[in-house]
């Protein structure tokens, strides 16, 4: 411990030299009392000298004293030349003994500060925090040193590395050491080479920017090592960048899947273009909002569980409205797909305006439960939890729907009606009822999509509009009446969109994609996985 503090002193004194303060004798241990005596004089130069004396004293409360100085809580009794400080709880303690003083002297004044004193205090604190008992604080200060690349921190860093037990903190400290050593032009060459290796292995953007800072006139061996390190890091970063883009693509694809899959059902089974599909998504999102408001006001403790209520409720609300639309409007328009398109567009306008008048035209705040916020890192990959949950949710819906179509009576009837409506009807299937339930199912799933989208998008009356065209393209691209087509369509459109974005920009990428899909439809007018058989040309 004593050795560490000596190193700390070295750093402190160097910093003081940098700040233009009087040069201190390096590593001459002075005790706490001497430092406090200097501070008690209350002149700036003496205070600065005093801070370092305290910092190197090794007293357990030295950090508290330096912090107190920085925050104007270091107090002097000028009459008796004694120093006190007020701790963060507000109690006045004796600076020498760290005992709480029951009756502090009446005429205490705060030690005067100026910028020089403040920066000296910060430097002393930074050095002290590299050895802070809290690992998070240690990492923080290591990163701060990495940013500043202050050569004065070097001895302290070395000491801290030697003392560090936790591997992850150690890694950060080493990285900081490498950054400082690398940038210090008078450091020995082998040390700097070692630093380059460390930075290369770290492979972060910060490391690249450190390596880039090498002056052009540096000697050849180091320069070459640096250049090759930069290349290797950038290659790795580019690779991670690809992985990140693929993840974004999967994420966007799952969002598209979730939004389009309900449409695929209604379109596939009934040949109905439901322009109000986006509004079903929006209703699902608003259901989430209402449920969360309810939880906020009546059971704030259970807020994390609000989604568990919102999911089934959104399904029921959107599904119920879907059935009502089918019975009320679409039923009258079978065999006239273009008219259905217009009528459902009208319904979408009505629903949008209804939500706008009820909830207002602005975005509503939908909270994210605790377990869905934040992100995790895998190598250079950042994955936010809410996106991951949406991918999982989309997968569950997809599998659930697949199973429902395969193994339930309704699923059987739906498939029968999709393949040959008249034949199914002749076999005694009540196609009208199947239509209503199918439409309800498709709309209900749109409602579920709304719950998911409320977590990543703005909940506003226009929510559905922004997804409707994309959803159509997914369905048309994938092929009607085939859930696998929708899956492939959603994922490939999502992926293509995100992989195009870095090269073409978001808007141009989207335009290219739209044009590509338009051309694709020329090639395969019925999508990737077209239904075959007689029903198609009917």
């Amino acid at each position: 411990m004593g050795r560490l503090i000596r190193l700390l002193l070295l750093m402190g004194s160097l910093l003081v030299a940098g700040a233009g303060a009087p040069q201190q004798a390096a590593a001459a241990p002075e005790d706490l009392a001497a430092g406090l005596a200097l501070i008690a004089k209350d002149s700036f130069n003496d205070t600065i000298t005093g801070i370092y004396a305290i910092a190197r004293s090794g007293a357990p409360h030295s950090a508290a004293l330096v912090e107190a100085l920085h925050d104007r809580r270091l107090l002097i009794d000028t009459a008796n030349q004694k120093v006190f400080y007020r701790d963060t709880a507000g109690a006045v303690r004796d600076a020498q003994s760290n005992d709480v003083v029951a009756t502090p002297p009446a005429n205490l004044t705060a030690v005067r500060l100026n910028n020089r004193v403040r920066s000296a205090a910060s430097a002393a604190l930074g050095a002290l925090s590299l050895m802070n008992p809290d690992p998070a604080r240690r990492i923080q200060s290591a990163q701060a040193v990495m940013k500043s690349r202050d050569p004065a921190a070097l001895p302290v860093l070395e000491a801290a590395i030697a003392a560090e037990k936790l591997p992850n903190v150690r890694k950060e400290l080493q990285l900081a050491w490498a950054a400082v050593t690398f940038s210090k032009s008078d450091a020995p060459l082998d040390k700097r080479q070692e630093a380059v290796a460390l930075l290369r292995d770290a492979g972060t953007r910060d490391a690249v920017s450190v390596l880039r800072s090498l002056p052009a006139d540096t000697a050849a061996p180091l320069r070459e090592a640096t250049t090759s390190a930069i290349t290797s890091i950038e290659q790795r970063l580019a690779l991670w960048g690809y992985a990140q883009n693929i993840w974004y693509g999967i994420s966007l694809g799952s969002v598209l899947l979730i939004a389009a899959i309900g449409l695929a059902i209604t379109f596939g089974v009934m040949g109905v273009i439901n322009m109000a599909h986006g509004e079903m998504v929006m209703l699902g999102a608003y259901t989430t909002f209402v449920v969360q408001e309810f939880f906020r006001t009546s059971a704030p403790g259970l807020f994390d569980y609000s989604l568990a209520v919102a999911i089934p409720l959104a399904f029921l609300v959107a599904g119920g409205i879907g059935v009502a639309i089918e019975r009320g409007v679409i039923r009258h328009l079978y065999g006239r797909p273009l008219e259905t398109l217009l009528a459902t567009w009208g319904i979408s306008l009505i629903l949008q305006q209804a939500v706008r008048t009820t909830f207002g035209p602005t975005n509503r705040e939908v909270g994210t439960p605790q377990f869905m916020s934040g992100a995790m890192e895998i190598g250079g990959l950042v994955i936010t939890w809410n996106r991951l949950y949406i991918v999982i949710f989309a997968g569950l819906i997809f599998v659930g729907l697949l199973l429902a179509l395969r193994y339930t009576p309704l699923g059987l009837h739906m498939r029968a009606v999709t393949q040959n409506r008249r034949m199914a009807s002749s076999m005694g299937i009540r196609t009208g009822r199947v239509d209503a339930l199918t439409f309800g199912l498709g709309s209900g799933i749109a409602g579920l999509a709304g719950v998911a989208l409320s977590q990543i998008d703005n909940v506003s009356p226009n929510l559905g509009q922004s997804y409707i065209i994309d959803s159509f393209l997914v369905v048309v691209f994938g092929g009607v009446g085939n859930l696998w087509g929708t899956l492939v369509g959603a994922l490939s459109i999502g992926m293509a969109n995100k992989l195009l974005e870095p090269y073409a920009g978001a808007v141009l990428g989207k335009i290219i994609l739209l044009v590509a899909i338009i051309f694709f439809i020329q090639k395969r007018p019925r999508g990737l996985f077209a239904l075959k058989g007689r029903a198609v040309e009917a």
Partner: protein
Amino acid sequence: MITRALLTDDRTGKWFLAIVLGLAVVVPLLHLAVPPSSPFHISTATLALLGKYLCFALLALSLDLVWGYCGILSLGHGAFFALGGYAMGMYLMRQIGTRGVYAHPVLPDFMVFLNWKELPWYWYGFENAWFAFLMVMAVPGLLAFVFGWFAFRSRVTGVYLSIITQALTYALMLAFFRNDMGFGGNNGLTDFKDILGFPVQANATRAALFAASAVALALGYLVARAIVASRLGKVLVSIRDAESRTRFLGYRVEHYKTFVFTVSAIMAGIAGALYVPQVGIINPSEFTPANSIEVVIWVAVGGRGTLAGAALGAVLVNFAKTTFTTGFLAPYWLFMLGALFVLVTIWLPKGILGTLYDFWARRRPAEKSAAKSETVPQPAE
């Protein structure tokens, strides 16, 4: 002569042309010759509004030609309208000259603002009126030709076609919103000064533009009428009602469709070009898919496959829109528009004019007319 031949069987058409051409004379007169104090005076605002309606009527007419007679439901006709508008807007921008905010002799203000150094190649020629007017027709026509050529040849029909036309206008909207496209981005083209040397804002110019819109609508009607009354028109209707059968009879369905789609796009482009100087601005929001769908409802309200009905529907719906979006009813306009979509498709599938035709046909069954039976659309999809 040709006109008379066209109209012999078309009583509605005679009325329609009489009204439109009458408006072309009467409205400008009421605006210019009648003093503002008189109750018969038409104000500048009303004149601009009526001119706008006529442009919309021409747009609706062009959509009715493809939807009503050929069964192609284009949800992207707004794109052709907007492209025509942009071509006109570019001409008007070039006419500003040094009167812009930055007083640059060649570059429009927004290009100076974006630090562009020279005019992009696709702006060349737009300082000439003849070139711009040619582009008003050529650009939408060419796009429709290429798009239709590909789409109809690969037999993209029904809702699939509707969706890709919607994707087309959506893609164009995104493109025109980009600043580096060189069409003024978000703000579009505005702040026009002159058209053919006359100040755009002047009353006489406005009156002339109104008359031009009315004449264009009348000509558009005659062209559409000539198409649907011809042999070609009969084939179009048969494509609408039974596409496969028509193909099996030996007609090249895709050629017919491409032709009528292109003609219709050119008409839409002209409508857009007349619209822009009257409202004084063109921006990418004209490409919004919602706009194009709204055009469809104008046609549906007036009567699909009746031509005159489409124009009537455009005027009625837009009149309602102007009336209801101002004042205390404003929050309910979308409810009304939505309800209109639903009610018309369910209870008035033939639109106003189509229903009237049916009514007359029932009242006077003895009077047989080829035109009437033909105008009743019988969608067979």
